[in-house]
């Protein structure tokens, strides 16, 4: 349960903080400041994202230490793989928050939207309780396009199954694919609103 809770919190917290940080600027109007500067959309998004990736990684470090020393769950597999996975994962989940922020206008909508759009897939469809391969219907589709599914295997694999880089290479690549896709989608939505 500890490795999967790690994955759960690393999607909830970064996504909510990221989504709010962008929508906040929209709601309070300070985003207009950016429109008049020569900063373009992608610079704005990535600049916003970087600090939250850092926050997410600190978050990861604290939870890792808690898992090891408070809950005494041994890390049997490769630590570099887990750390690399966490970096990719946090980048992806902040990207997920960014995507949600790009189509919401108010902070309430962004907060509730991120909560509902991450909580339900994370708890139900990402393999935390039931393996994704046994899901059927809409749940199976959501499970396959939700980043936590892929990080959960990395987290559970390195903690309990003694897996290393070789076993989890595919998962790492799959996580990495999310990053450009999410960024480009957010950019597309953001552009539409500027026009």
């Amino acid at each position: 349960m500890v490795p999967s809770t790690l994955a759960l919190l690393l999607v909830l917290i970064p996504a909510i903080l990221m989504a709010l940080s962008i929508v906040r600027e929209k709601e309070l109007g300070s985003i207009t400041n950016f429109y008049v500067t020569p900063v373009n959309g992608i610079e704005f998004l990535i600049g916003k994202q970087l600090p939250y990736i850092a926050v997410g990684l600190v978050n990861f470090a604290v939870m890792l230490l808690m898992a090891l020393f408070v809950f005494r769950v041994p890390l049997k597999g490769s630590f570099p793989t887990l750390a690399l996975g966490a970096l990719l994962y946090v980048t992806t989940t902040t990207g997920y928050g960014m995507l949600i922020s790009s189509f919401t206008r108010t902070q309430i909508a962004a907060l509730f939207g991120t909560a509902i759009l991450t909580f339900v897939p994370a708890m139900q469809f990402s393999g935390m309780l039931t393996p994704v391969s046994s899901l059927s219907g809409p749940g199976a589709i959501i499970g396959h396009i939700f980043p936590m599914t892929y990080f959960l295997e990395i987290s559970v694999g390195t903690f309990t199954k003694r897996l290393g880089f070789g076993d989890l290479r595919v998962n790492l690549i799959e996580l990495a694919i999310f990053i450009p896709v999410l960024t480009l989608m957010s950019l597309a939505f953001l552009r539409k609103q500027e026009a």
Partner: protein
Amino acid sequence: MRRMVANIFWLGTKELRAFSHDFVLVALVVWAFSFSIVSIARSSLQELHDASIGIADEDQSALSRRISQAFLPPYFKTPRPIATHDIEGLMNTGALTFVIDIPPNFQRDLVGGRQPRLQVYVDATAMMQAGIGAGYIQQIISAELNNFLSRSEVVPRPPVNLDVRIAFNPNVTTAWFTSVMAIINDVTMLAVILAGAAIVREREHGTMDHLLVMPLTPFEIAMSKIWSNALVITVAVGLSLTVVVRGLLGVPIAGSILLFLAGVVIYLFFATAIGIFLGTVARSMPQLGLLYMLVVIPMNMLSGSNTPLESMPPFLRTVMQASPSTHFVSFAQAILYRGAGFDTVWPQFLAVAMIGGLFLGLALLRFRRVTAQAT
């Protein structure tokens, strides 16, 4: 008094207008109470469904083939024949949740009465399935073995015939359970967010000061936010229960929906009070978001809507009695599944109302203090 009621009413309509103007928010609420519920109900979460199983058949006898053929959908996927040396790799990647290893000469040893060993590997990281599935596999294999042996020798009949009758949900369909529990989780989530965000928004925009210079008391401001947000959620729950759960998913509802909605209204007083309380603690929306997760995740996960309260440690069980979400889940199950009337559920209603009232008082107290500081 009349003036106070009128103030609360008109302020509440302002909240409703703000809500209905936010199209994305309205769309998200609709999504939460329709598609989200359907997707949870239709995904066969808690039962053994399409479990992946592999069989390393080193015996290749009639018996070992019969065992492989005994694992049928919808419980299991078609068993995948694998080699012994692949077992570890396939279990590691999570490709297979269960593996059965049938040793060489299994049938011969069985017939010869040498008690051969059959190995079953279970991936315990697939938490829900591991336990249920291991039980199913044991039953299936022993049934096959009994069948096989009964042709060659006389197997003694079991001394007792177990006669199992399942009440309230004869086919143990999990959709009946998960759909309603999903609504309950949504109610808690939405109530806390809407009320909390309504407060934080006013503070961030500075419109709270506008309200305070008007001849209004903090009590009126808080009550207006409670009734308007509670109304939105009650309507959403009513529609979701009748249209989505009963209509679309075909879940039979045993008790009175009106009685349940009355319970929802009582519960909402508590949940929105928590929202207002958090709204007074948080100074910005991101703070509210983080506080929200600290409060709502345990309230939802430990309320008995995901796992039964009885299987939690005694300490946690006692603590969760103080959370109205626990009583909410318990009366919701009583009314909707077992058709309980008011005479059965009134203790839970009372518990929710009392804890809710207490929290509302606390929230108001804090609200008064915070707004007094602001002026």
